[in-house]
């Protein structure tokens, strides 16, 4: 990036967040108070410009996508999180399911040798399945689909496996790694503040435990992602606190590849029934931009289109995001919460068109953000 292109345009001369734009562009770290000011500002264009300048400095015009497939192996869960529309108490309840390892293999059989890069595997916290179910699932997938990275189990699931087996997090993660685990997704972070967790997900692992899981994974060389579920009861300060805790962890370990702000969906869950509306499109872009501006040590910001909607996700590519996730294909967690995007219809060709409309260069990646040489537009669609 040339010197000229980091000159802040004249139109932002009187922006109330001009000092923060300069600070971020000068590689100075933003503080809690700075982050709160950004959330409270409605100067979307100014924060978008700054976040985009930093995004382009890091990644140029490239926008990543990948060919991936979600596996939600079960939605049976022992917890009752108020923001969740996905879980059921039993596989026998209406809308409940649990797959055997054979079921899992059958569901993804069509993907053999198609150039798929990643299985994204998450489920509820199942009260009855033995730990061996999870290791067997990973091994079976690895054997059947060599070359497809297994990104599996949120920190909440991992913490539960430790509880279930009486083993340490490191032992549990080592066994999963041995079985084929390549990476952890970023889910279960929600909002770290105790006040919020107590109100929306008091049963699940607390924020300290979430960090212990990720730190243990990083120590074993397992990279992870991180998330924030915004737009329910959290304050601006609690959002920024969340981002700063992620930044601290990354300073210690460097093990996180991407940050994914997740938009709360209010349908079919207890929080939504309390008359919480959907976060606005402006909130979507602000969360992307502020994530980029605050998290100076996390390489990638992902606009997860299934969660944001394809249109806001596309706009996010100009507000700090450099990754739009993938073809996904079969996703239930946000569909059951009222998301209107239909991953079944998404093709690689369409993802590339969406990225190109935004003036970006689509680049296919693997699960670890390595570029795939010689991108094919055939394959799974």
């Amino acid at each position, binding site marked *: 990036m040339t010197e000229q292109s980091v000159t802040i345009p004249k139109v932002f001369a009187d922006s109330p967040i001009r000092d923060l734009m300069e600070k971020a562009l000068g590689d100075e770290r933003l503080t809690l108070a700075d982050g709160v000011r950004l959330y409270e500002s409605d100067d979307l264009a100014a924060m978008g*410009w700054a976040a985009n300048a930093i995004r382009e400095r890091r990644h140029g015009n490239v926008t990543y996508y990948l060919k991936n497939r979600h596996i939600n192996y079960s939605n049976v869960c022992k917890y009752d999180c108020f923001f969740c529309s996905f879980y059921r108490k039993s596989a026998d309840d209406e809308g409940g399911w649990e797959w055997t390892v054979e079921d899992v293999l059958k569901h993804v059989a069509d993907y053999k040798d198609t150039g798929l890069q990643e299985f994204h595997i998450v489920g509820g916290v199942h009260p009855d399945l033995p730990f061996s179910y999870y290791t067997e699932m990973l091994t079976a997938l690895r054997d059947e689909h060599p070359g497809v990275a297994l990104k599996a189990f949120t920190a909440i699931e991992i913490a539960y496996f430790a509880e279930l087996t009486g083993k340490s997090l490191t032992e549990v993660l080592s066994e999963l790694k041995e079985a084929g685990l390549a990476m952890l997704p970023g889910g279960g972070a929600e909002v770290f503040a105790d006040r919020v967790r107590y109100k929306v997900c008091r049963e699940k692992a607390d924020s300290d435990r979430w960090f212990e899981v990720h730190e243990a994974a990083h120590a074993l060389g397992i990279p992870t992602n991180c998330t924030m579920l915004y737009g329910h009861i959290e304050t601006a300060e609690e959002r920024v606190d969340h981002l700063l805790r992620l930044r601290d962890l990354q300073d210690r370990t460097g093990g996180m590849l991407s940050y994914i702000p997740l938009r709360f969906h209010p349908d079919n869950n207890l929080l939504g029934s309390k008359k919480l509306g959907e976060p606005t*499109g402006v909130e979507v872009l602000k969360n992307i931009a502020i994530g980029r501006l605050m998290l100076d040590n996390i390489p990638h910001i992902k606009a997860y289109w299934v969660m944001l909607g394809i249109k806001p996700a596309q706009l996010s590519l*100009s507000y700090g995001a450099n990754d739009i996730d993938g073809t996904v294909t079969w996703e239930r967690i946000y569909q059951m919460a009222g998301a209107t995007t239909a991953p079944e219809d998404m093709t690689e060709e369409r993802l590339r068109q*969406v990225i190109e409309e935004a003036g970006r260069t689509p680049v296919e990646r693997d699960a670890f953000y390595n570029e795939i040489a010689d991108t094919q537009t055939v394959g799974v669609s």
Partner: protein
Amino acid sequence: MTRDRSALLERAYDKAAAHERLSYKEGVALLEDGDLHVLQALAHKRRMHLHPERVVTYIIERNINYTNACVTYCRFCAFYRRPGHSEVYVLTNEQLRSKIQEMVDAGGIQILLQGGHHPDLPLTWYEEMLAFIKGEFPQINVHGFSAPELEHIARLEKLPMRTVIERLRAAGLGSLPGAGGEMLVDRVRDVIASLKTTTADWIDIHRTAHQVGMTSTATMMFGHEETLAERVEHFERCRELQDETLSYNPDGGFTAFILWTFQPANTAMWRYPKLESHQYLRAATVARLYLDNIANLQASWVTQGPRVAEISLLSGINDMGSTMFEENVVSAAGTTYAMNSESMERSIRECGFEPRRRNVWYEEVTV
């Protein structure tokens, strides 16, 4: 970018910031090479300059499509049926009454009355429909008949346009929608709608409406055959006519400009890649800066969805459009978003504005 181009762009930014009129070349430079965030900031400043109150307006209005029979066969349309097709309909008076009553019960004040180009209905049929509506609901404004519908009726009746407009107005027509504008560039019209009203005729029909003292809106459907420069050409056609109308009527003729993206599914033009929102946002910002003589810009939540409509409120747009109630044209092409007055007001408030109900002339309507 060449040095000349950079200089042109900088000059366009400066003129836009100073609220000066942009030339066609400057408009093209902005749309082709302008920085999205700079455009967004400039357009939002212009919008706040034109409408300093932190208010976003909307109207409670119902779409009514009186027929889907059409003999114009536009390639971008998924709504029409050829005469004789089993799905052809023409609404009865009873159907009209119940649709309008439903809207009135929800606080509505206007219908957007449009239809296909039916081969057999005479002008008297339209006059009777208007007379029926105004007889039943005298308080309702009928915002109706796109320029191509009017042209179709005038041709069938072999009457001058002015006569058709005056007779419909006498029967109860209140204002004209901007539909059928599509792209006001004949090269593009020849490709997408070769049987439809030409650019000059579309402009002339709106000119006639303005001359007899009616207001209208202008629209643009983009994201198909046209180039970026042709989008600006479309803005230019609208700005020119508004200048002309302003020369004899200080209120002007176009009350608003509405742009939306072409929805290709189920149309003969399905091969064009569907635009999502990036090009929409860019076009909206340049429209706000270029159309310095048209007061209002409407969000197209119908094609863009409520989330992008919210973003557009910080990007030059000052009106949420209409509640619609039913939408038959874009939804026939597979796009189905929904908003009602409650969700609109919520969106507007969440974006930091006060919602305000309006009529077609952008006057406040008290609830």
